[in-house]
């Protein structure tokens, strides 16, 4: 169950994926508010203004991709909890993201249970 006032920011250029993640987050009670951003630039901007408890970050996006956005967010807030979302298990990208400070990653296509478990685990981290 989410803590009152907890926020998750979903950054993905595909509105379908944002909807799927939003539904999973809401149905699992992982956050009271789910914010959305359609690319890396919007994602960084949204992070600055709303300081969410967790960010799910797609890797492949136009304008700023997920790695660039992750780097910018970690600069703003080194304690940020970012979970990368990749459409395929690109080992190098996942390794780069983890080195930059991402807490975990989800591989598309994903099932609802896995997403719920990963987000719940990262939300509980300090």
């Amino acid at each position, binding site marked *: 169950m989410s803590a009152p006032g907890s926020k998750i920011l979903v950054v993905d250029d595909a*509105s*379908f*994926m944002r*909807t799927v993640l939003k539904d999973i987050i809401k149905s699992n009670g992982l956050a009271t508010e789910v914010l959305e951003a359609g690319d890396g630039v919007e994602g960084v901007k949204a992070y600055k203004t709303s300081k969410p408890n967790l960010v799910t970050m797609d890797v*492949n996006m136009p304008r700023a991709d997920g790695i660039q956005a992750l780097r910018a967010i970690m600069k703003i807030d080194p304690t940020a909890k970012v979970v990368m979302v990749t*459409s*395929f298990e690109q080992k190098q990208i996942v390794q780069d993201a983890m080195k930059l400070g991402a807490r975990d990653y989800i591989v*598309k*296509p994903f099932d609802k249970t896995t997403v719920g478990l990963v987000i719940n685990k990262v939300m509980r981290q300090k």
Partner: protein
Amino acid sequence: MQTLAVTENELSRITEIFSKCVSNSTVGALGTLLGEPVQHHIGKTEFLDITQLDQLTPAFSDGTNMSAVYLKQSGDIDVGVMYYMPEKDGKRFAAKLLGKKRLDSFTKISKSSLSETGNILSGSFFNALANDQGCKTSADIPGFAVDSFMSVLEIPAMEIGIESQSLVACSAEFSSSSGLKLRMLMILDPQNAKKLLEKH
């Protein structure tokens, strides 16, 4: 520009690579997306002149519009991939992804769901290709269209085959247990087909 010939032996080796990556990754990814078992069938790899696109049969009835997603992969090799199905099946497919009973027309989110399906299937396919062949590529943003088969095929075919005036085309057909059908068409020019085989 002189057209490179692609031999029957090379075509069957490409079929083998294509088949392996589809079986090992794409089928499973589609099954997970749809939440149901998926069967597949690999077609014959063809080498054809760009003026003979009509040799590529749509695998569905000719007179109907197709809903199609096209992506270009670039990197060690340049490849075009198109996923398509009859328009009405596209609506059924999107409805299933969105958890709806039916869809009367393509909305923004339903188009996004089909584009993302193309993205995910290509991601799994090219990840398998990278693991098996050491052939690394990255994807463009997918494009979605509804039109006749020849119209949706023309733009990617021209983009890939304009210089060589010829194409190598591999295809796979997927069918789910609830009767949803989807076809994947991978097209590359002869030079990139040979690069793929060199990597093998």
